[in-house]
């Protein structure tokens, strides 16, 4: 089975983010980057499928030069090779623009399965995988928690709301967006890091791919959540007040 895993590089969690001078994006200087967490689970799922069924895992990343670090980690964990679409303009593209690039870079790969995280930790649109599937003309399923491969088809378990799940059988090739936390992520071992140096990374210049139409979705303004101080006095008997307080903490402030 040939599996392509689309991964994204995002700022490390808990980074101190600053808005850049344009007000349209974050200041990228001095930030450290890592693999988008749901994509890490997509990669793990791909590696486990390969261990069970054989085949090849190809990591696919669009982004600037620094993305090579995330690619190297994917190769160190066990991906066989990688495709790096080199571009510095990700923040100015919309989902369709990015999905167009990803689709163009892999259209000749004839993958059986394409996996990606269900959303990115930076923008969190959750659309890239879905649009990519449409562009490739293959079926997709989202928020996947489990994948079982049979010959020519797969059975997947989708997470719905309220603790409900859906089991779907679908033909291959297909695209799945993977939920975070569904398995235990492996480490890149030191041996794996050493081996990664010898693996192939195909570099594709964004300029060589068909130009996407102008973005239909643009970012108007990036800003930090604005803090508001507010004091509320809760009336009633202690019992009623406590019940109201719990209600508020649960559903308004969402801390319990």
């Amino acid at each position, binding site marked *: 089975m040939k599996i392509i895993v689309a991964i994204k590089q995002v700022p490390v969690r808990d980074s101190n983010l600053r808005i850049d001078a344009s007000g349209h994006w974050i200041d990228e200087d001095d930030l450290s980057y890592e693999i988008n967490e749901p994509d890490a689970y997509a990669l793990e799922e791909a590696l486990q499928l390969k261990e069970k069924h054989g085949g090849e895992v190809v990591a696919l990343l669009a982004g600037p030069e620094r993305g090579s670090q995330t690619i190297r980690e994917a190769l160190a964990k066990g991906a066989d090779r990688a495709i790096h679409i080199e571009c510095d303009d990700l923040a100015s593209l919309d989902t369709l623009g990015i999905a167009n690039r990803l689709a163009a870079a892999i259209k000749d790969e004839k993958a059986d399965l394409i996996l990606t995280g269900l959303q990115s930790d930076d923008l969190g649109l959750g659309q890239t995988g879905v649009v990519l599937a449409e562009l490739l003309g293959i079926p997709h399923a989202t928020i996947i928690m489990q994948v079982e491969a049979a010959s020519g088809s797969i059975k997947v378990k989708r997470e719905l709301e309220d603790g409900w799940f859906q089991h779907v059988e679908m033909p291959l090739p297909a695209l799945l967006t993977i939920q975070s936390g569904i398995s235990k992520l492996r*480490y890149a071992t030191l041996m794996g890091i050493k081996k990664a140096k010898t693996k192939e990374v195909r570099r594709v210049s964004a300029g060589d791919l068909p130009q996407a139409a102008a973005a239909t979705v643009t970012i108007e303004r990036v800003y930090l959540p604005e803090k508001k101080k507010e004091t509320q006095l809760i009336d009633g008997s202690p019992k009623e007040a406590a019940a109201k307080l719990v209600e508020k903490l649960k559903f308004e402030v969402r801390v319990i």
Partner: protein
Amino acid sequence: MAFKFKNVDFIGFDAILSEDERLVRDTARRFIDDNLIPIIEECNREGRFPRELVKPMGEMGFFGANLHGYGCAGMSNVEYGLVTQEMERGDSGIRSFVSVQSALVMYPIYTFGSDEQKDEWLPAMAKGEKLGCFGLTEPDFGSNPGGMRTRARRDGTDYILNGEKMWITSGSIADVAVIWAKMEDENDLVRGFLVPTKTPGFRAYDVHGKWSLRASVTSGLSLQDVRLPASALLPGSGGLKSPLMCLNQARYGIGWGALGAAMSCYDTALQYSLMRKQFRDQPIASHQLVQEKLAWMITEITKGQLLSLQVGRLKDSGKVSHEHISMAKRNNVAIALECARMARDVLGANGISDDYPVMRHMMNLESVKTYEGTQDIHTLIIGQAITGIAAF
């Protein structure tokens, strides 16, 4: 409640590391954060070596990481150093265990061993299936190992070893001991032997009541008429230079490791000082005397990073001398211990509790200051290198 470690990098140090070096460091960091940090305080309290981490560490490639072949990871010395930094950010005892396995047992087998010895021990040791210990120090001889009393006597084609070794990390959990002894029929030349610990006459007993390195095993070894075949001798070893070459490997790793402990203390002090409020409802980080401590710590850590990196680069290009390694070990352990004491100060009473890693690092570093060449001995090594006069 201990804080989640945040990277310590004041002058863009990470940017002068290669992509692979950062990846190795980050991988080791994640492993330590996931697997050691959650259990280390309990191990330290109970005086328990976390044996359960041996196999996972072997799978990660942490043992003999800078050796090539035999299932070892083939890391550069800088990469290996960054791994030891992360280990010791967790705990000096765990780093000690890995240093002994890697630099003091696998390295001499790799460097002085026969092909049979390498094939027998290195792959199994790289996986963590077999553990080793290193017997050089004796009850009466520490800084002056040349005074050792352990003797090897020839008997036919066999050797008979007698002697006592002391302060041996991993002594009682080891499958094989690298024992250094004077050869009676070779003019007291010091040579190394691979002694399987189940050999009759070999006994290891643990040192109890330690206030330091409580998460690693420290033992004394007793060898009474231990009979070994000729094949137990490390054929390439000859003279005190051989064990000192091993110590050089380990000391190099300690130079990096001490920085890890220092980073843990600094980061804890920084995060604590930003959270802890005292006067006028302001965090104590706003006080000049606290800032002075934090500024001292980050400055010394930064200088130590540059020192270790340059020594590592020299080692990777084959140009390192033992006095370079002495400088890194001496400086970085000293500043780490000072960072631990300052961080304890910043944490006030909370600093003495094992809710925070600071006092554990401080107590560990007292050992690290002494073993593998004391602070004073490294001072004299540097003194000898610059004056040409040996003062010991």
